[in-house]
């Protein structure tokens, strides 16, 4: 039997008209009927918060869930650098077509053309919307909006609010959400964690959650479920994600039949503060925007690595990005910049503790523009750097190193952002659709808001309209059964009472993934890791120690559930990386590189999305392909030279 092939349900017609014609022909739910529908939105970040607010505004009944104490704290808050849009306010030749093309190329030709085009198309409305809700973007003296450049683009199309763009965008979303909460259309459930998805007659009709204060396990039913639960970068333990970021919501949905697409596509951000010790719990990003003014270098000679950087003369420095990629220089895309940093460190030319660091030097920019200008642009980042490292980057170059930052993979969705499970929608970083094998800077915020404000509110009607508000009741056996399974799993976690902490397991799989499925991957390493995951899983369930009980606020228990899922999911990442016998974007298989050490794609055999289907715990999952088709873009070797 030949394997099924996935249909993304891309609308017909020329690329530039697809979205317009889709909207014109989508089904509508009559305004008076909307209040008969209930929509569950899990996540209150840019994606979930904006979707929940718009659904509320449209008249639906919404239940929104987040694990933090307030929706305002979703990890979107931490985005520093900015958000892209094709406004062309700088008159530097930008357009929807160019933003589209940059994003497809940035993704190393592994994303879906129609989705990316739509993203570029709605990008401008996002900026309008944000300004209208009071987002204080940076401005020029004349009162117009200011822009900066990000990697992988030769135009200045990034809008920003100091180094706190994500915060300001999220607070905008949160204010809209708060307005709807006041209006009674959205009911917010903070400190509530989704632990499973409920399927009724093949459709996603609800979730099972745990109240993180009382431990109560409860079900919620709805006409549709939207997952906006962010990325899974914390699988690596050390990442720029927040402590609570998890794969649980999406992994549980995967276990219930949703396909997981391209899990091996992860982004390692080139400019983070290097690791300093094993006690460390997270890595801090230094925004890519710094690369507008910072020049990246290492000493040419190994012997110089221990010296004070000020004592290393200009001619003894290797500005390797400028040397290798003269047209993009320090703004080469993330995957390329990260790999280059790894290369120079592998050559023994890294700086700082363990030789795992490169310099990012602002002295030229300070000489050219003055310290005040640099302070105005990046003051909070320099402050953060000094606080963490104790070094003053106005005086001495920053030390930076790549760190796990973003996950391009996610639950598979069609053009309408619905997964293969009817009624289950997935938006924001949690889905896989727009960034291919590598995401360009400032494009995740754009995607989260595009999905939540301007795409899902249109597409969800096609699913909801025919239903007429006939959702099942939480008393149904499907809900009771799922609740029982959730309770059982919690009991199992609590009753192991072994002698290893949850964190020790998390650190172990983090290192395993970083080595086998990080910046460079090999067949051999991945095969070993896949085996190792079986052993770790076994040990976890025999020897983990979880403190306390279920019926209380129990952070040890919360973490244990998440780490258990990361163990299963980490193995899936490795399987996906092993399947893809090519290098593309963030997925670099050492066996597949050009003589210059660049990623070597294999379009003949791997021009597809790999979507994984769960076949039972402990079984090898099945891979289903969504072949990619490009109507307008020519496949080319990605060059930033």
């Amino acid at each position: 039997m030949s394997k099924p092939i996935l249909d993304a349900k891309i609308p017909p017609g020329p690329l530039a008209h697809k979205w317009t014609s889709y909207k014109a022909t989508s089904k509508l739910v009559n305004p008076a009927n909307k209040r008969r529908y209930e929509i569950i939105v899990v996540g209150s970040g840019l994606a979930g918060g904006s979707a929940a607010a718009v659904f509320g505004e449209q008249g639906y009944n919404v239940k929104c869930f987040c694990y933090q104490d307030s929706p305002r704290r979703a990890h979107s808050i931490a985005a520093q650098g900015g958000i892209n849009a094709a406004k062309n306010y700088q008159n530097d030749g930008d357009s929807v077509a160019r933003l589209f093309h940059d994003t497809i190329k940035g993704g190393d030709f592994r994303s879906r053309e129609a989705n990316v085009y739509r993203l570029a198309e709605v990008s401008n409305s996002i900026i309008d919307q944000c300004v209208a809700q009071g987002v204080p973007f940076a401005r020029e003296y004349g009162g117009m909006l200011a822009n900066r450049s990000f990697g992988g683009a030769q135009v200045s199309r990034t809008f920003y609010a100091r180094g706190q763009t994500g915060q300001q965008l999220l607070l905008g979303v949160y204010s809209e959400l708060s307005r709807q909460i006041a209006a009674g259309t959205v009911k917010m459930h903070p400190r509530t964690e989704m632990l499973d998805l409920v399927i009724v007659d093949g459709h996603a009709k609800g979730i099972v959650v745990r109240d993180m204060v009382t431990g109560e396990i409860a079900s919620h039913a709805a006409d549709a479920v939207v997952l906006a639960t962010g990325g899974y970068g914390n699988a690596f333990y050390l990442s720029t994600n927040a402590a609570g970021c998890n794969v649980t919501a999406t992994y549980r949905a995967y276990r219930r039949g949703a396909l997981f697409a391209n899990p091996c596509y992860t982004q390692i951000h080139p400019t983070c503060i290097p690791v300093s010790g094993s006690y460390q719990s997270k890595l801090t990003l230094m925004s890519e925007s710094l690369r507008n003014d910072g020049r990246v270098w290492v000493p040419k000679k190994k012997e110089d690595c221990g010296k004070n950087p000020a004592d290393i003369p200009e001619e003894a420095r290797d500005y390797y990005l400028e040397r290798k990629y003269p047209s993009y220089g320090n703004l080469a895309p993330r995957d390329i910049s990260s790999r280059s940093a790894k290369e120079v460190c592998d050559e023994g030319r890294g700086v700082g503790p363990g030789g795992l660091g490169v310099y990012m030097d602002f002295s030229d920019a300070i000489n050219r523009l003055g310290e005040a200008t640099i302070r105005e642009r990046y003051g909070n980042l320099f402050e953060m750097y000094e606080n963490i490292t104790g070094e003053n980057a106005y005086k001495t170059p920053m030390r930076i190193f790549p760190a796990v930052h973003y996950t391009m993979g996610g639950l598979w969705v069609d053009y309408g952002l619905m997964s293969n499970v009817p009624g289950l929608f997935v938006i924001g970083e949690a889905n896989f659709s727009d960034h291919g094998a590598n995401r360009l800077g400032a494009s995740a915020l754009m995607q989260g808001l595009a999905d939540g404000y301007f795409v899902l509110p249109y597409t969800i009607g096609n699913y909801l309209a025919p239903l007429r508000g006939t959702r099942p009741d939480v008393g149904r056996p499907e809900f009771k059964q799922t609740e029982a399974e959730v309770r059982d799993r919690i009991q199992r976690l609590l009753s192991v009472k072994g002698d290893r902490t949850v964190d020790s397991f998390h650190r172990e799989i983090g290192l395993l993934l970083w080595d086998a499925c990080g910046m460079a991957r090999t067949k051999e390493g991945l095969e070993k890791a896949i085996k190792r995951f079986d052993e770790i899983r076994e040990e976890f369930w025999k020897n983990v120690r979880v403190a306390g009980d279920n019926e209380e606020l129990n952070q040890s228990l919360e973490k244990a559930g998440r780490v258990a899922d990361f163990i299963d999911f980490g193995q899936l990442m490795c399987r996906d990386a092993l399947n893809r016998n090519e290098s593309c974007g963030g997925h670099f298989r050492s066996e597949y590189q050009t003589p210059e050490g660049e990623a070597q794609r294999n379009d003949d055999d791997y021009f597809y999305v790999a979507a994984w289907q769960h076949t039972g715990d402990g079984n090898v999952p099945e891979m289903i392909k969504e072949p990619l088709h490009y109507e307008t873009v020519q496949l080319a070797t990605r060059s930033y030279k």
Partner: protein
Amino acid sequence: MNFHLKVWRQENGQSGGQFRDYEARDIPAEASFLEMLDIVNEGLVLRGEEPVAFDHDCREGICGMCSLTINGIPHGKGRGTTCQLYMRKFSDGDTIYIEPFRVGAFPVVKDLVVNRTAFDRIISAGGFISERCGAAQDANDTPIGKTVADYAMDAAACIGCGACAAACPNGSAMLFVAGKVGHLGLLPQGKPEAGRRVRGMVAKMDDEGFGNCSNFYECEAVCPAGVPAAFIAKMNRDYAMASVSNAVEATA
């Protein structure tokens, strides 16, 4: 480094609490305050004791989740959040008192975790601009001077942690409220609702049981986002104006 910790332990919102002694041993100077607590907690778990519950998430000073009172000061000495406090700022052998944020309107949930949903309710009472998604004009249609935009950003930088209220002898949330009122009120988009906003938010603040401002300015001193207390004075003016115009509207 080694530290003696005196940590507030409280089972839940209904129970009482007390300080308990813990030793933090072999802590690297580069560790953050929360990483120090992680190390202590791992030890507690292995000894079969309940780890100390504390709120945290981003661990980079922006989400506003972390909320410890350290030696009597919300977020500890120096500007910044708890998660951005590093152990090298302490001396070996120090005794450190760790408590939750102490504000009547933020009841303790467990140990060092408090319930700050009162802040969310204050925002729901007017901390927004009512506009419909998709109805906006082009973003550059209304120019906003750089100085105004920058000043609005100073206020908008608030991370909603609640340290202001925890530092205030009256448990007042004025800086939090004034930040939002100032941010939105300065921008042309926020002006139409300015009066409603300030009236609604202030009323809600009182309703939630936060105290009044009597100009101690402890709030400004501990604010990790550096929101200037000048916004409080601005809000007082806005509030007075809004109350007057409300009275006029009501009689008109």
